[in-house]
């Protein structure tokens, strides 16, 4: 059964800190890994990664995939209170559907 595990489940830091969120997976026939940010109800798309070792970057957020070790990390530098959200990792694999992790709840305190 395809599985995605995120860590930590919860993280509280101060504004300006850098955070690293982890996502490990076990899926058959890996196709892609996606990161989403969920502030209220609807998750919003951040990144999709398909190739190992190639960093995707958007402003203060960046992500990289390691297909050999079966994990991805999401980095956020110079965090702001607006970064507070649940960050979801999902993998598209042989089951032809996205399998989501439990999410990491990130809280940025001023």
């Amino acid at each position, binding site marked *: 059964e395809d599985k995605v595990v995120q860590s930590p489940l919860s993280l509280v830091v101060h504004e300006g800190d850098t955070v690293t969120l982890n996502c490990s997976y076990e899926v058959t026939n890996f196709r*892609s890994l996606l990161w989403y940010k969920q502030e209220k109800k609807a998750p919003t798309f951040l990144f*999709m990664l*398909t190739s190992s070792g190639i960093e995707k970057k958007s402003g203060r957020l960046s992500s990289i995939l390691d297909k050999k070790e079966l994990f991805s990390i999401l980095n956020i530098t110079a965090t702001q209170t607006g970064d507070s959200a649940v960050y*979801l990792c999902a993998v598209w694999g042989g089951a032809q*559907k*996205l399998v989501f992790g*439990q999410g990491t709840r990130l809280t940025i305190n001023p």
Partner: protein
Amino acid sequence: GAGVSQSPSNKVTEKGKDVELRCDPISGHTALYWYRQSLGQGLEFLIYFQGNSAPDKSGLPSDRFSAERTGGSVSTLTIQRTQQEDSAVYLCASSLLSSGGPIKQFFGPGTRLTVL
């Protein structure tokens, strides 16, 4: 609005009643997904429609749950004889689909279902 829309945004019902949740995907998106998110949990896959192919219903938790997609566009998720454990946010998403999987899924705002 060019995004995914869902209705109602909130639904409160009594145990044992049937409910229908609606999703309008982004125009032109061939793939449509339903997920359930219980409080503090990740997204649980329910069902997936792709074009005219038979839907993947492997995530439906019981035979009280069903979904249809009419004309390749709007989808309705029906829960019969609701139970308290059905209380959750039900999220719909749509995407284009390439041979390598979804390009990216766009989510609707969800329907918060509360079963009393």
